[in-house]
């Protein structure tokens, strides 16, 4: 590596303050407590500490994993598009996006690592006994590859070897898109689950990744500048505005997709799909859906962005936070609603809906995901902050 790499060159002393150190520590503690709760599950038995059942095998850990994985894809894709085509207004934000894409997927991996009952077998049999028809296999393998590519890319960015970095960024982005679409297919190809089954989900997941990725970009860029107590340069501000435009565009697409998705359940198709949709319309998930997913996640942010014409930084930041909260709930609602309706509906005096609420352990592990992303962000700014501010043409 010709240019070498020294932390001294990339570290950002401005973000080393007692206050920010405390914030970092809180995130690290969140991560440690959550991961400990997850590790304890292996000892105590997953069925004793997580609220998943035979009928509802997946819960908030899967949905939160999907949330982080989808955000990671968005960040990686936006970074790659900016790096490849250069000259566009997002480029000045791209180095940070690469780092945060790595961090968010590591957050996701942590969640799924303690959600799997016997993850150590994965290390062996994913390699020696791969099932090429399995979307889970492809998703895991491709996200794994993507992280590898992005780590290399990030190292090359730090050492200013931009040409190879862009090539690896492309590979990383391709792997992320393929992984993301397989994540959608994990749900979309299950014929026994009418609420998930269908061709829409994979493209919906990809659209969600652009939405979440753009929101994360606005949020982290803004935080990074607040931490430095530094006003955004014009180029960075223009980049944030572009990301916000993308948020508005993606919100529109997701609103359209959500509307037709629900209408389709009520005009025909399997009864189970309709019952699952009811769970969101006026059933056990109605608050999640209408307040968090629709109002906070879709309508308020698009309204805010349109009214302020993307000229207010607080408005753009608020909209981004709302989008990410909405996306988090959206993943949860999707995962849970798909399993809520009993397979043998009508038999055995089964309830219309099974009940699922995350256990304390599940919430702690979810918090670990947040802790890892938060700590990763803070440490990234601390050690590589100057590289993120590097706006050199790639």
């Amino acid at each position: 590596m010709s240019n070498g790499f020294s932390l001294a060159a990339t570290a950002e002393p401005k973000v080393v303050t007692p206050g920010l150190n405390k914030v970092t520590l809180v995130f690290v503690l969140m991560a440690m407590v959550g991961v400990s709760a997850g590790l304890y599950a292996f000892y105590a038995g997953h069925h004793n500490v997580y609220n998943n059942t035979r009928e509802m095998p997946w819960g908030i850990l899967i949905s939160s994993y999907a949330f982080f994985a989808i955000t990671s894809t968005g960040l990686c894709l936006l970074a790659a598009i900016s790096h490849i085509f250069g000259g566009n207004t997002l480029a000045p934000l791209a180095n940070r996006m690469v780092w945060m894409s790595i961090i968010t997927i590591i957050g996701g991996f942590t969640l799924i690592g303690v959600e799997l009952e016997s993850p150590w077998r994965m290390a062996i049999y994913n390699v020696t006994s791969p099932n090429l028809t399995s979307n889970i296999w492809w998703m895991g393998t491709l996200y794994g590859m993507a992280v590898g590519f992005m780590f290399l890319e990030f190292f090359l960015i730090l050492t200013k070897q931009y040409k190879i970095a862009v090539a690896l960024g492309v590979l990383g982005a391709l792997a992320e898109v393929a992984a993301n679409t397989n994540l959608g297919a994990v749900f979309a190809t299950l014929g026994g689950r009418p609420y998930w089954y269908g061709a829409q989900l994979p493209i919906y997941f990809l659209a969600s990744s652009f939405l979440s990725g753009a929101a994360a970009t606005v949020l982290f860029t803004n935080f990074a500048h607040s931490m430095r107590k530094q006003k955004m340069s014009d180029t960075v501000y223009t980049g944030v505005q572009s990301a916000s435009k993308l948020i508005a565009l993606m919100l529109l697409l997701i609103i359209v997709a959500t509307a037709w998705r629900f209408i389709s359940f009520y005009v025909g198709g399997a009864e189970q799909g309709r019952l699952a949709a009811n769970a969101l319309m006026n059933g056990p998930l109605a608050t999640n859906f209408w307040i968090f997913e629709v109002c906070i996640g879709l309508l308020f942010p698009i309204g805010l962005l349109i009214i302020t014409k993307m000229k207010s930084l607080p408005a753009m930041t608020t909209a981004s936070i709302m989008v990410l909260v909405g996306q988090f709930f959206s993943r949860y609602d999707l995962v849970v609603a798909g399993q809520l309706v009993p397979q043998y509906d009508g038999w055995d005096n089964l309830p219309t809906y099974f009940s699922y609420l995350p256990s304390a352990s599940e919430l702690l592990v979810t918090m670990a995901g947040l802790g890892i992303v938060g700590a990763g962000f803070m440490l990234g700014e601390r050690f590589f902050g100057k590289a993120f501010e590097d706006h050199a043409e790639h």
Partner: protein
Amino acid sequence: MKMKDLEKLNDEGIENIPSEERRKFLKFGLSVTGVFLGGSVLSLTSAYKANAAVGSMPTMPKGQKFPYSPHYTMVMRQNHCIDCELCKEACVKTNHVPSYGYRTTILEQERPISPTKSERIFMPVLCNHCNRPPCVRVCPTKATFKDKKTGIVMMDYKKCIGCKTCMAACPYNARYFNEDVRAVDKCDFCFETRLSKGEIETACVAACPADVRVFGDLADPNSRVYKLIHSPEKVVWVLRPETGALPNVFYMND
């Protein structure tokens, strides 16, 4: 007798007809519609359903072979089930199923048969050993697989990573996570515990006192399961056919 004379006769009412006669009439009606209306109505009768469920190949009725040999199948003569649960007990004992799980169970339903009356019916369920098993397709490590010889959907515990995608994919809620082996467990038609040791039927079949569960080789035209499924006057159905899994557990009221 002419129609006019018939009309003059007293109405005997249908209340007094023995149920034997009612059944005959229904069977006759079914045969007539099956024979004379062809195509779409035939889909209600056994032959079409059986073929649809057994193999996706439309050529099967023309004498094509069943995909497996033996092609293990179970037929449930559902109306004979009295919910004695001896099948469940036998399964637990034979296959060491832990208390928190089950490989087979019996579902029940209170079904209205008139505005004022209802009847209780029972439905035994287990893994359907589908010809297009969604669980096998989604497993990342081939921990669950379809046996090439018998078509039985089996588990290789040591490969199971516990992602539970097979549980989410199964249309029949046939799988549970067995904490003792840290892997998903399910019915294997007693392959491990009985069939591989020379027995010819599963524990649940052997235990059933009401002859509800019939087990056998669908590829053998002389087997009882083959004959049950291919009796044109009977309605045979499978659970959740819309999922496209092509199950190998058939239901009928016999």
